[in-house]
């Protein structure tokens, strides 16, 4: 068995001086190339867990390890987010002032030095998403499904090893939802990436090779 790419050890996360406990001792190991779905009711801690896996925050106690190295101490969180993970959000979170092609280049500006072929790389990714005719549009000129495809292209901009998607189909109709999941699973298989999706939709959860269900900050048996 190979070493896990991500590992969570007895992670607890509390807010408001401990009055709110979002995670209460979570242990989890995720292997490279795996498709993991995290499901559970609202307030179960699934988005909090995704934020910890993505290095957006650090746990109150416990450890999150990337390739057996602790995030936030041995690995700088900014560097981890810029190089190793790609985020996809439910609300897309595209930059409204930037064109589609420019939006995909934003993560590349986080690298030092920023790659010289930013525009070409962004265009290639957008073509893969079937958005070659939308390069010069602004986000508000796109449909919801198209915006999420731009967000996926942006998440792939720096060739991360892990894709993290927080309710990626939450704002989409069933047709677009199916298409987005088809794209995500296609990327995961073709590129051998690790795909972690937070969802409350059973259909999506069941389509993953592995799934965990959270309730009250704990993984259900």
């Amino acid at each position, binding site marked *: 068995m190979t070493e896990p790419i991500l590992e969570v050890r007895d992670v607890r996360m509390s807010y408001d001086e401990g009055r709110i406990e979002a995670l209460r001792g979570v242990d989890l190991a995720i292997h490279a190339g795996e498709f993991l779905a995290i499901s559970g009711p609202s307030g179960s801690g699934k988005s909090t867990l995704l*934020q910890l896996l*993505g290095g*957006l*925050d650090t746990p109150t106690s416990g450890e999150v390890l990337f390739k057996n190295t602790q995030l936030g101490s041995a690995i700088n969180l*900014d*560097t*981890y*987010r*810029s*190089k190793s993970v790609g*985020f996809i*959000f439910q609300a897309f*979170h595209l*930059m*409204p*002032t*930037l*064109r589609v*092609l*420019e939006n995909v*280049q*934003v*993560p590349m*500006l*986080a*690298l030092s030095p*920023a790659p010289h072929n*930013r*525009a*070409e790389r*962004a*265009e290639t990714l957008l073509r893969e998403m079937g958005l070659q005719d939308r*390069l*010069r549009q602004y986000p508000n000129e796109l449909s919801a499904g198209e915006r999420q495809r731009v967000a996926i292209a*942006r998440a792939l901009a*720096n060739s991360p090893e892990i894709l993290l998607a927080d309710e990626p189909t939450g704002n989409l109709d069933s047709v677009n939802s199916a298409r987005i999941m088809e794209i995500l699973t296609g990327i995961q298989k073709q590129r051998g990436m690790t795909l972690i999706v937070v969802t409350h939709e059973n259909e999506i959860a069941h389509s993953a090779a592995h799934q965990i269900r959270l309730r009250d900050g704990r993984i259900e048996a």
Partner: protein
Amino acid sequence: MASQLSFAGFAWKNLWRRRLRTLLTLGGIAMAIGAFVGLVGFSRSFEHEWLRMYLSSGTDIAVVQQTFLNTSVSESAGATLKALPTVAQATPMILNLMDLTPEVNALSYGWKADSYEFDSLTLKSGRRFLDGQPEVMLGDLLAENMKKNAGDALEIQGTTFTVAGIYHGGSALEAGAVIMPLDQMQKLGSLEGKVTAFHVRLRPTPPGETPEHYLARAQAEIEAALPGLRAVPAAKRAGNNQLVQLSHAAAWGTSGIALLIGILGIANTMAMSVFERTREIGILRALGWKRWRVLVLIEMEAAVLGLAGGIAGIVIGWGSLRVLAALPQTASIVSASFPLLLLAEALGIAVLAGLAAGLIPAWRGAHLSPVEALRHD
């Protein structure tokens, strides 16, 4: 060709999303820089004209009391000065600022009719005045302004003077001035026996001595012979006199206040911009942008505001200097030339003002928690 996103391009797009606010902020800093260019340009031009006046008359040293506008030097000191081995010529003078009419005020000089300072003036009409007579000479700019010719009468502070001649001066300060006999000026101001300064021409530098050393030696010699008086080199005196210092202080003070208002305008714009873009900053942080990179982006936006405002301000300031140089009331003390140093200073101040104004908003933006920022509506 696909368009490549650059850091600067990103900053510009962030500014351009709120065009009206950006333009109004830009207008604020432009006015501040315009005030700086206009006022500081004016005061430097004033100093430059003083220097030109000293240089054209060949004055090496001015002997004064402690302050420039203090007309309390005894006229009798002239004899002591003339007896010193380094002094070739020493001429007494009084300087004043007089209201000639309710609309026109002018620098007024009291000179002896045999002053060497006449050497730098060109007589255009009439003749030189005579000591002891109620006569004046007008600079050509002033004469044109007052529509006076040689032979005309001119009333100054209740005394009727005859315009003996019209001259052209090497400096705008002379061209816009009135010169009268020293004794008449003393009588007008009840300053009998007193002068503002002695202007001194030195003998040629002796062989084997540097001009700087010779000047310093002459200064020491004069001050030793006339205790209580100061011997100031002409070049230094142009910048040291109270009128110039006053104009510098007024220029810097006024433009400083304008700059402060401009800085507050940029700071307000940047603070609002950061607040409105809290979630976007969270996205940048989520995408791996480091804190310093977010800080640099916001500071760059503030600096671009400062720079653009600075360029617009330079145009405004230069335009106002041109207007001042053309107006009869101020043409005598302002030249329309535009020194590159002032341009560089204005741009530097504008960019620094932008950076200073953007610092706190940038710091706040850079230190937003990505999770909190992403939750922000």
